[in-house]
């Protein structure tokens, strides 16, 4: 079953000419054609462009070129700008926007020889945890079509879970890679802030946004991150570091690994099924030679409120450019400039985006700035200090990625705070700029459960090693939803 193969296997098959890149792309494009009407995981699919890229890869393969990702299909979250192919960010505002440039990530993965099949659905401007806020309609969870795939990278997650594509990019501002990865039974990595360039990645909250890979396994993610990471002078927050091989530690044994369990991540609010799966995963780690200790992140309870001040504040400013003047949606009729702005933005943005713009505008307003924005920044430092303290005692932290498995459509969309709390374990990681990884660790009521692994800054290689050794001992990451097998 070639559509369930790992990236490493696909690369080997391509190199051995057992399959061509065009055949591979066609196979996945056919799956998209067949299953996407059910899942709505893609906003845009470009068969012609994909096949042209695949032919190019075949030419390179034919010339004897080898590269770990050459000729392998992938999809991009529709937040990454792609030259000549529309980039919507899940919004009516950009429904017809075509960028004249590629995002750095898009550029890097193309240069690595990957074949882009299309652009994945997402919550509007990456604001959401269920993919229900997309202008292009909700994405369905392949494990249960009555449930959400998580968000905001829900399209990417559903597409991989149903094997419509072997790998995809995502972005994570408060959990948008890890939470859908958990809800769809995938591996998803949010790298250290600054490791992956944000150039060409449409901004939600600049100080928190980070692109990362999503795939079936940690090994796949390591290969993808090798191509995605790297300094980019066009992003001032991109870090100038020597390139690393994120696969270099994959096989390292886990003997002596110290796993910290933040007691705040194991308190009330977690579903029993999730707890059971996570506990079993920890037991497996102990069997693999690791040691678990309890640690504390005393300020982690403040992370959701701090996040919902800072992220909307930055978003309210980042989204000001969508004013109908230069590109994007513009109201058809208006009396004057103010009317044009108001109608354009009223029509172009959905409810959740408006809610966050209002919150952000409020917290930055004169007289409120100190009480909200400044205080939240101080909290952010406390949260980062908590992590630094914890990492003095352990190599990585573990806990559940989400408090529950995939929820039903509409279950939380009426209550924004309930929705915001689905990111309770992931948000602190973004506030501290740390790398976070979610891997499948079992099921609760037939739905996938994610185990979150958090490391110190730049510990991606070690975290991928920790995940990979577990995935060698378990097969949760190989499980498929029956309907899409």
């Amino acid at each position: 079953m070639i559509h369930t193969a790992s990236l490493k296997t696909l690369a080997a098959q391509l190199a051995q000419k057992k399959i061509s890149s065009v055949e591979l792309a066609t196979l996945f494009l056919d799956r998209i054609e067949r299953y996407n009407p059910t899942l709505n995981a893609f906003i845009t699919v470009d068969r012609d462009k994909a096949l042209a890229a695949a032919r190019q890869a075949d030419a390179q393969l034919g010339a004897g070129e080898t590269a770990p990702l050459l000729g392998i299909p992938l999809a991009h979250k529709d937040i990454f700008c792609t030259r000549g192919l529309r980039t919507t960010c899940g919004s009516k505002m950009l429904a017809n926007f075509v960028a004249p440039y590629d995002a750095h990530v898009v550029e890097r993965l193309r240069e690595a020889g990957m074949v882009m099949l299309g652009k994945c659905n997402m919550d509007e401007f990456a604001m959401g945890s269920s993919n229900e806020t997309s202008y292009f309609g909700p994405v369905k969870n392949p494990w249960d079509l009555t449930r959400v795939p998580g968000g905001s990278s829900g399209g990417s997650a559903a597409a991989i879970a149903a094997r419509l594509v072997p790998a995809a990019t995502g972005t994570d501002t408060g959990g948008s890679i890890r939470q859908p990865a958990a809800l769809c039974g995938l591996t998803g990595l949010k790298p250290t802030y600054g490791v992956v360039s944000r150039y060409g990645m449409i901004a939600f909250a600049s100080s928190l946004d980070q692109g990362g890979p999503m795939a079936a396994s940690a090994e796949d993610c390591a290969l993808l991150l090798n191509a995605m990471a790297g300094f980019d002078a066009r992003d001032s927050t991109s870090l100038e570091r020597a390139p690393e091989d994120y696969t270099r530690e994959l096989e390292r044994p886990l003997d002596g690994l110290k796993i910290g369990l933040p007691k705040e991540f194991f308190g009330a609010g977690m579903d029993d099924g999730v707890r059971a799966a996570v506990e079993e995963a920890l037991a497996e780690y102990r069997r693999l030679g690791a040691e678990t200790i309890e640690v504390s992140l005393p300020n982690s309870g403040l992370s959701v409120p701090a996040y919902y001040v800072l992220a909307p504040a930055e978003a309210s400013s980042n989204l000001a450019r969508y004013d109908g003047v230069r590109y994007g949606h513009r109201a058809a009729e208006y009396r004057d400039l103010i009317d044009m702005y108001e109608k354009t933005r009223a029509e172009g943005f959905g409810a959740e985006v408006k809610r966050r713009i209002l919150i952000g505008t409020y917290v930055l307003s004169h007289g409120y700035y100190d009480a909200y924005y400044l205080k939240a920044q101080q909290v952010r430092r406390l949260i980062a200090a908590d992590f630094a303290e914890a990492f003095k005692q352990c190599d990585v932290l573990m806990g559940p990625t989400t408090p529950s498995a995939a929820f039903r459509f509409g279950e939380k969309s009426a209550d924004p705070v309930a929705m915001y709390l689905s990111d309770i374990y992931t948000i602190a990681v973004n506030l501290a700029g740390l790398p976070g990884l979610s891997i499948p660790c079992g099921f609760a009521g037939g739905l996938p459960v994610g185990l979150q692994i958090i490391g110190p800054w730049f510990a991606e290689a070690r975290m991928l090693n920790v995940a990979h050794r577990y995935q060698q001992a378990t097969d949760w990451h190989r499980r498929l939803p029956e309907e899409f097998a």
Partner: protein
Amino acid sequence: MSQWEVVIGLETHVQLLTKSKIFSGAATAFGAEPNRQACAVDIALPGVLPVLNRAAVVCAIKFGLAVGAKIAPRSVFARKNYFYPDLPKGYQISQYETPVVAGGGLSIRVGEQEKFVRLVRAHLEEDAGKSLHEDFHGKTGIDLNRAGTPLLEIVSEPDLRSSAEAVAYAKALHSLVTWIGICDGNLQEGSFRVDANVSVRRPGAPFGTRREIKNLNSFRFLQQAIDYEVAWQINELEEGRAIHQATVLFDPASGETRAMRSKEDAHDYRYFPDPDLLPLEITPQWIEEVKAALPELPQAMRERFQADYGLSAYDASTLTATREMARYFEETVAAAGKENAKLCANWVMGELAARLNREELDIAAVPLAPALLAGLIRRIADGTLSSKLAKEVFEALWNGEGQDADAIIEARGLKQVSDAAAIEPIIDAVIAAQPKSVEEFRAGKEKALNALVGQVMKATQGKANPQQVGELLRKKLAAN
């Protein structure tokens, strides 16, 4: 009117002389077709990010050094949020709480009075685009070529007490920023724009409520706008009305200021640190590098001109109005000899400046090399040329005739005749021809001698040395 004191502070937007924009690689040259010098960053397409241009920072450091200010080791870029069609991102990247330059000041001169004007700060920011309200049939055209152009906003303390002081400050600042090469100084193209905060008060009273006159792009408008505004404010107060804080525009056609918006509808700009940019870090080494490349500053040069060349404060100040003028003067002195410095100063500020002015030429475009002017000055100093003939030679040099002053003197036979033997026969002839004047002089009328000198000069076509002629005449008239 006399019991009111005027208080003025200026905010000046200086367009920095960098090749590319402050946060993008697009060119900054003026006058391109609309929207041809605006890249993806300038028009704020989704996903693009600002990257700070180091050349703009160097300009800010130069300015900070030139005004003796503190250069912040760490300053922060902030977003100033407001909606306007020519502001593509919906926010302007500026500096708010921590500017790159703080304090410092510069000396100004009004008549004989010298005054030190303190600066509050100078910060880096990006310019907006332009809204074009003509030619679009009731719509507005947007040109984003200017969007992202680097600006240094320089804020003075409210130390200025008259429109004349405000103009002197603006001119001194204009001179300084062009001197250190951070601005082309072109007022018409908007490279140097002034906002004036104006209030009046009773002497000794706290500051009055100010109104801000926006976007003055000439020194004359600055003066006119402040004069009108001051008279208006005094009239309001004397009529018993209060001044309300407001932003006003100056209409050059009517010479009046009118309110644009009041404080009540002032924007809440929701400033916050720009998360797309790291704090700007300036190391002492960087400052030292910039300092080493900085030219001698006008203040230091003025002091040196007074000390080395014995010039007056006024002369030194006039000659250092621009770096080109100062350089021209110094090159002239170098060729003419230091002992002739005062003469050089007189000629550069006098004949040369007048001629440049008449022909509307900048000193940078002067057709007369300093060495040539120096050649002329040497001939004046050694008595070869009278000042009248010197002007003729200057004219010829200006027009490019002759190789140098000596060649022109030679070719035109303009050499002053100082040989007594050559002049005496002419003097004798004049004495013989002017018995009336001779008689008057002998009767004790000193002025009569001038008439005789004049006749000799006329007869020699100006080549005689008038002082020598006078002496010879006295001698002869006394002897007879």
